[in-house]
């Protein structure tokens, strides 16, 4: 099978439109960023507290809000998160956020979480269940201790490690098969080693809480600033390294063009982040780095071909050489980008909530990164050649002239 055979597009002739397109994308994205008062940083870079809670049913947002405000946590945020990006799915997960109060106060790092947990326990807790422990938040040790005490398998002193293992299996079933929250003990009856007696013990000895804490993130404000600083500089150094390598392998203008194109990709992706209300977290930084690598890869493939064709096509004008190189590699560009796009699209749709922001950056980044190789990086090199006067002017001259120039350049 073969698509894209013998394509012949004048890409460099359309450079003006590419510039306009990029400009529009940049302006729209960054207008959104400015409108929102800057980039939306996640907890990693901002400092603060996030508590991810899963409820047994649809999350009672109003009740949570009421509980939070009656505890004086008015500056908290509540957001439902869904595993399914296409909407629908369960509405059981919420994330409760709290800004870090005071810029330098690292000693009260814990207070936010304590406050949120207090609110949750007060509003939805099982404290009135006659002191029975909550199965949905119990630790393995505590569960094993209760099982050993109640001894539903009548093992007596011979129990040994059996109840520890049973507790571990029960909790593994709770966490891995039921996402951390069990709504009825019958859901556990297929767990290895669970007998009716065990189920009975569970039924009588435990209550099933309405919620479970899935994840807690607390970052001090100083650390947030520090992480931001460090991620920024690591990326800058990496870009600098790439620039030097490409300059060494090609010419410095190629390195500069590739780096400018990559900057362009990152800036546009950040704009899209703001437009679609995603937050910048450390994982997103990893995604941005991935797209930097990806876009760079794409650009080099084209530059490589330009270098090769330049040797073969000594008579043609430089823009034509670049056009030909892009056309020759177009098939591979579209194939590779298409397949990578497919991969990250699947990741975005099916990868779950944790990978959501990451794969969103990749989906945008793959498209923008591919486009920038021929839309931004290549025109910059062409423009530079023209500016330097060696593009059209010299190449249009006689073959003899050209040989002299080529010799001088060597």
């Amino acid at each position: 099978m073969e698509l894209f055979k013998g394509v012949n597009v004048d890409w460099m002739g359309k450079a003006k439109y590419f510039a306009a397109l990029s400009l529009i994308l940049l302006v729209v994205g960054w207008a959104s960023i400015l409108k929102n008062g800057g980039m939306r940083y996640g907890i990693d870079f901002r400092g603060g507290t996030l508590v991810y809670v899963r409820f047994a049913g649809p999350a009672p947002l109003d009740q949570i809000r009421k509980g939070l405000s009656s505890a004086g946590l008015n500056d908290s945020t509540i957001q439902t998160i869904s595993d399914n990006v296409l909407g629908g799915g369960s509405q059981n997960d919420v994330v409760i956020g709290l800004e870090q109060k005071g810029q330098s106060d690292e000693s009260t790092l814990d207070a936010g979480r304590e406050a949120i947990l207090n609110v949750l326990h007060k509003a939805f807790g099982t404290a009135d269940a006659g002191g029975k422990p909550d199965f949905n938040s119990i630790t393995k040790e505590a569960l094993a201790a209760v099982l050993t005490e109640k001894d539903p398998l009548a093992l007596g002193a011979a129990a040994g490690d059996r109840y520890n293992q049973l507790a571990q299996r029960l909790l593994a079933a709770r966490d891995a098969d039921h996402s951390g929250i069990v709504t009825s003990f019958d859901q556990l009856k297929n767990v290895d080693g669970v007998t009716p007696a065990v189920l009975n013990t569970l039924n009588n000895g435990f209550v099933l809480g309405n919620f479970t804490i899935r994840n807690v993130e607390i970052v001090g404000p100083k650390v947030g600033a520090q992480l931001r600083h460090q991620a920024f500089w690591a990326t800058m150094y990496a870009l600098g390294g790439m620039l030097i390598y490409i300059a060494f392998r090609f010419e410095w203008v190629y390195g500069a063009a590739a780096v400018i194109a990559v900057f362009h990709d990152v800036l546009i992706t950040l704009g899209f982040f703001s437009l679609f209300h995603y937050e910048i977290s450390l994982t997103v930084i990893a995604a941005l780095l991935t797209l930097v690598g990806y876009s760079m890869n794409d650009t080099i493939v084209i530059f490589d071909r330009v270098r090769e064709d330049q040797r073969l096509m000594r008579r043609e004008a430089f823009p034509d050489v670049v056009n030909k190189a892009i056309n020759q590699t177009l098939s591979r560009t579209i194939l590779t980008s298409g397949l990578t796009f497919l991969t990250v699209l699947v990741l975005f749709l099916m990868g779950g909530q944790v990978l959501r922001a990451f794969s969103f950056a990749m989906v945008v980044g793959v498209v923008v990164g591919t486009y920038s190789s021929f839309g931004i990086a290549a025109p910059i090199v062409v423009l530079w050649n023209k500016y330097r006067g060696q593009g059209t002017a010299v190449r249009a001259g006689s073959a003899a002239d050209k040989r002299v120039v080529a010799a001088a350049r060597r």
Partner: protein
Amino acid sequence: MNSQLRWKFVLILIVIVICLYGLLGLPTFPTSLTQVKANLADRIKLGLDLKGGSHLVLQVQVDEAIGQRCDQAVDQLTRQVHEKNIIVGDIRRVDDTHIQVDNVDSNTSGAFRDLISTQFSDWTSAPAAGVVNGYLLTMRPTVVADLRRETMVQALETITRRINALGLTEPTIATTGRGDNEILVQLPGEGDPSRAKAVIQAGGQLTLNRVADDQPYPSEAAALAAKGGVLPPGTVIVPGKSEAQSGYPTQTVYYILDRAPIVTGQDLRGASPAPNGNNPGQFEVRFQLSTSAATRFGPFTEAQSQLSPKGRMAIVLDHSVYSAPVVNSRIDDSGVIEGNFTEESAQDLALVLRAGALPASIKYLEERTVGPSLGADSIRAGVRASIGSLIVVMIFLVIYYRMSGVNAVVALILNLIILVAFMAIAGAVLTLPGIAGVVLTIGMGVDSNVLVFERIREELRNGKAPATAVDSGFHNAFRTIIDTHVTTLVSAAFLLLFGTGPVQGFAITLIIGLLANVFTSIFVSRAIFDWHLSRKDRQAELSI
């Protein structure tokens, strides 16, 4: 098959065997499928973000230790100046590393300078700016640096001992490499870090001091007033809780204690929790002293018990009096800390006492807890998505490139095996950003193959024979592949050097993946092509 090709396949086979062994054959060679699964789960180390657990970053307040050193120097200097009859005005600490001495009498200033240069070699002295006959002592920068380093080492050791004593599975305790005074504590599988945090943060500085004045005071001012506004030399005021009396809530009271302790935490030989005999349900912590400490403690307690009324001894933990019991008789080598302890808190205090005191206090900068259920969900979603997309990509490659597509699929699978195996062998941890690295690796793996294939097609279109087309296709694509891979490797190396945690995780996966990629897409894929060609007529059509 010619001999060169045969050697290529032998080499590829060796690589595969090593990778599979490194991935599945350790720690014990498997004999059943369940063991293979167990080995795999054991070998692929998942990061906390995928496995669940707690991640704490804490900061050791090293400046405190420096300040303490400064305070000690002030104390020592005051005493020495007094002993040597050097006449000075005020001696005070300016900040953590500076001491100012006012009004050194000009007749004794020579003796003063002598004293500094002989007894206080950690300090440099210079005339204080704008103060007549004043001196400013500065702690030498090398001493400060050493002290910082020692404090960090000691804090790391102490925290390690404390965490290990908690008996959690595979905790990691290390410096973060981010700031020079930060420590990273990772507790895999620990969904609630509050107990570990309390144990880490406990100061654990135990001292036993003589109570200089028998009665406690309701406030610091009252204690001072009772002494006519000036504390007797060598004593300090230390807060504590009043003894529990039924019907009265405990309140903060102030004791006047000897500054110099009789014994300190370093003299402890052991500490253990025990039920409190007087209050059922409550616990206390019993401690034993070393023999050398007992030789001081015995005579001291004997002297206290013979006073009339009998003297008291304060048990001070982290600058707060836990209790100040009357010493009834001689005690040689043991004691009890009473307090409102539960079994667990008594256990934890005993643990902290055994592990030794922290050289400076601790602040938490960062705390992340990933519940086991979230970790399980992200793995499931991530793996499902990765496998799903990989299958789609592979099907497409086979449709588009036919037999050569199969080639690419083999190369891709081998690439993944090498990547995962090398991570297992190197003990690298797979994190969420690491999965990002895998995605980029797969992307570049597909790209390398597509580059080669498109180039071969081009050469075929230009009328070259299959063998020549394959040869020049690989030859031309080789340069591009090397350039793209080296560029990405350069950036990954920088990220590894300058990045932190997640960024580094990304870089490690990427570096291993890219190296594997160069091997599979150039060496392995080429070998398979050559094998195809060697079995066919030279002019037969290539399935591409």
